[in-house]
């Protein structure tokens, strides 16, 4: 819908400097290894142990240069795709309105049969998995909706021992929370689906960091071939080290609509100048 009177802005968001950083901590994979991420400790206090990820792939994830930044399947990206059946049930998984947050069915064991740590999403029954994906898709940008692949990716690879929950349309704050058996939120993820350019990205980050309380992950779906590196460079280039320091525990994860991981960035990492 056209809105009368909306003209091109006077470029208030255009950085006036040329401090575009050359390198950020990008990772082609969009899912952290166990223990990675902006996990809290059950409170809103940023985890002191969170270390910014280097851009060298030292955390086990290849850099975009190593992978061409268009790796089709990162960890969590090669999962079976849930079909579109609406299995929206009444039990668990969604925090809706004034309902008491409930917990989806989850197997008591958080380890797979081979003893490896199990993805918490895999511990959910198929109906709950479907419902959580449905919730996220229904709750996204109606003109550029989250794909089912990307919705499922957001729900995957949570901290071990947690259960993913979706907030739904009735609850403020982050879209996805990974909650441990004590009911503490260990990790928050906020979804954004951006069909526009840098201005839209900038606004999305500004709101998402508040929604996750400066501690968690912002997952952003973009169009294929979006130059997300340039967005990160520009965003960081307008901020001082002190300001960036407020984002120590904020990671941004990009995926395109084809399900390709485009990069994971820790926002506090200021890359060296070009």
């Amino acid at each position, binding site marked *: 819908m056209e809105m009368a009177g909306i003209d091109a802005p006077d470029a*208030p968001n255009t950085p006036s400097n040329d401090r575009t950083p050359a390198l950020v901590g990008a990772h082609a994979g969009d899912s952290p290894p166990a223990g990675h991420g902006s996990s809290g400790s059950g409170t809103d206090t940023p985890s002191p142990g969170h270390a910014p990820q280097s851009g060298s792939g030292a955390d086990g994830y290849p850099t975009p240069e190593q992978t061409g930044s268009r790796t089709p399947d990162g960890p969590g990206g090669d999962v079976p795709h849930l079909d579109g059946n609406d299995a929206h049930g009444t039990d668990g998984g969604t925090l809706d*309105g004034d309902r008491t947050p409930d917990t989806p069915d989850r197997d008591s064991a958080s380890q797979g049969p081979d003893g490896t740590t199990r993805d918490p999403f895999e511990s959910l029954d198929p109906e709950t998995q479907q419902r959580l994906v449905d919730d996220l898709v229904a709750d996204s940008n109606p003109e550029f909706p989250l794909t089912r692949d990307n919705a499922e990716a957001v729900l995957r690879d949570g901290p071990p021992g947690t259960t993913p929950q979706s907030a739904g349309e009735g609850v403020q704050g982050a879209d996805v929370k990974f909650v441990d058996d004590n009911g503490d939120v260990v990790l928050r993820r906020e979804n954004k*689906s951006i069909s*526009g350019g840098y201005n*839209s990205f900038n606004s999305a980050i500004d709101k998402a960091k508040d929604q996750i*309380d400066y501690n968690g992950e912002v997952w952003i779906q973009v169009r294929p071939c979006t130059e997300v590196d340039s967005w990160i460079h520009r965003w960081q280039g307008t901020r001082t080290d002190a*300001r960036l320091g407020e984002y120590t525990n904020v990671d941004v994860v990009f995926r395109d609509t084809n399900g390709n991981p485009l990069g994971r960035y820790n926002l506090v990492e200021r890359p060296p100048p070009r």
Partner: protein
Amino acid sequence: MSIYAYLVCPSRKLMLGLGKPLREPDGKIRQFAAGSESAPSNSEQSDLTKALWKFLADTTGEALYVKFDYGEEFETIAGYPEIGGDAEDGNIPFEDYLRGWSG
């Protein structure tokens, strides 16, 4: 929800973030909520509420719209200075916007 709402004044090229729209089961918007799940309700956030009143005074006579952060036009809207946004992006922090205002 990943959607966010803004109060927008196109003629003044100014906007104010309202928050995530919280909906009733029938889809009707019940309220907007800015911030995390532990944040006070919008009406209990004094800076936001004061800024809303000042925004209304500042834009008297102009057309105002409540817009969501999607659609082609949002890329333009997102370039407007936002009341309460980060100064680094050309926005106007609440502290600056409300300084000396007694309304």
